[in-house]
């Protein structure tokens, strides 16, 4: 495996192996060890053409714990925002000797363009592209779900997950749907019909417009962020109405089954898709998702970079 562009690049065995590796790495991180020498001398570039402090910091912490050299190339102050082409940026990164590029980009498919081009040879890791995918987020979500709900099983067989909110524009949802299916979980999507893509009938998911009907039967409720600008594009009338039908509030929290958990990829709109008391409740694993993110991203970097032969890297 050279790149991580989409969850569809992974076999079930590869996905499980990333989760297993992350489990061992989490154990290391919990102890006295904060740094491993594994990627010493390797250069990882965080190319963030779109703001995302949390994902960037998570990848940066993961790379540093593996002793890689990290270069941050963020949108503000970089040439990406000044109209330099993706191609020229790639050529620059190649000249700098990047071994891996972690890319966050507003355009769907930008990471694949980098990976497929002959502009550079580095491994490409998709850290969120447009409304396409966010595979590392899905892996950390699966890691979190496995820890809480899988009862020791390596995969997520039989676990029921509801993904609620703006599926149409969510790269988190796309990656999660693919990965949850790969790992044997069943997925229900809950959203207003305007926020579900045309063509969704072919996806291996159940679709519901009724949140209350779905809640009691699932082990995981995964809330998606709703962007304020969707209101002006007629996707729903206003925030109040959205929140009434699709927000996770304390009344709906009571409908959840006893051992179920609440997830959110962040950043949250408290009071819109999730009520503050739900986000801070005992069922919420939202903060844990963040800390799991570092272990999972270490595992991704390890799997993609540690085993690469010197020869291949220098070609």
């Amino acid at each position: 495996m050279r790149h991580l562009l989409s969850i569809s690049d992974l076999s079930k065995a590869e996905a499980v192996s990333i989760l297993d590796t992350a489990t061992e790495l989490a154990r290391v991180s919990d102890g006295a060890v904060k740094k491993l020498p594994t990627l010493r001398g390797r250069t990882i570039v965080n190319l963030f053409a779109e703001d995302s402090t949390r994902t960037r910091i998570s990848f940066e912490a993961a790379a540093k714990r593996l002793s890689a050299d990290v270069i941050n190339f963020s949108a503000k102050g970089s040439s990406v925002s000044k109209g330099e082409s993706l191609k020229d940026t790639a050529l620059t990164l190649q000249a700098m000797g990047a071994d891996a590029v972690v890319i966050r980009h507003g355009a769907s498919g930008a990471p694949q363009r980098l990976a497929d081009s002959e502009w550079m040879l580095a491994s490409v890791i998709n850290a969120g592209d447009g409304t396409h995918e966010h595979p590392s987020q899905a892996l950390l979500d699966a890691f979190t779900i496995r820890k809480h709900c899988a009862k020791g099983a390596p995969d997520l067989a039989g676990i029921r997950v509801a993904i609620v909110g703006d599926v149409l524009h969510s790269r988190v949802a796309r990656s999660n749907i693919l990965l949850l299916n790969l790992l044997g979980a069943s997925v229900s999507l809950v959203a207003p019909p305007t926020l579900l893509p045309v063509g969704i009938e072919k996806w291996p998911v159940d679709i519901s417009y009724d949140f209350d009907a779905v809640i009691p039967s699932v082990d995981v409720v995964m809330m998606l962020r709703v962007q304020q600008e969707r209101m002006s594009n007629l996707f729903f009338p206003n925030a109040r109405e959205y929140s009434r039908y699709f927000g996770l509030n304390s009344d709906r929290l009571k409908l959840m089954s006893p051992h179920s958990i609440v997830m959110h990829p962040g950043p949250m709109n408290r009071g819109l898709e999730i009520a503050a008391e739900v986000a801070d409740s005992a069922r919420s694993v939202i903060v844990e998702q963040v800390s799991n993110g570092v272990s999972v991203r270490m595992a991704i970097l390890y799997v993609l970079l540690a085993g690469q032969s010197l020869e291949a890297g220098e070609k």
Partner: protein
Amino acid sequence: MSVALSALEISRALTRISHEILEANPSSDLITILGIPTRGAHLAVRIAASMSQIAAREIPVGMLDITMHRDDLRMHPPRPLMPTSIPSSGIQGRDIVLVDDVLFSGRTIRAALDALGEIGRPRTVQLAALVDRGHRELPIRADFVGKNLPTSTTQSVKVHLTEIDGIDQVVIEDN
């Protein structure tokens, strides 16, 4: 393929090593046995059990994965990580005995020393190996050896253990 050690010989070697470790470390309450996965970890459990019996006290045993510290990672496809488990008594100020199945180039042990260094500072670090086949590439030697097996570099030494392979034996194969 020739059998270098039979099940009985392995058992005897491990018993002897257990005695030797206790003799070399008079303050046996400071000893911690750490096996290097996968087969070293099983040998460590056997040695610790045997030592516990001899010393009539529980000898702490754990395992130490050294994958992330290897210097040959880039020459192979990525290896899955093995579990690390350090006994609750930790390694700080203790006499650590690393256990591996075959001592060869010495690089695994170097990686193990680095991995230990990340966790803490033992009082001493000692090394037990079931087989020492020679061809060292680093200044590393074993304190306790089950059997010295002179081999050529074209040969490979395979340790089979009942826990994994269903049989205890050490064989030499010509490649």
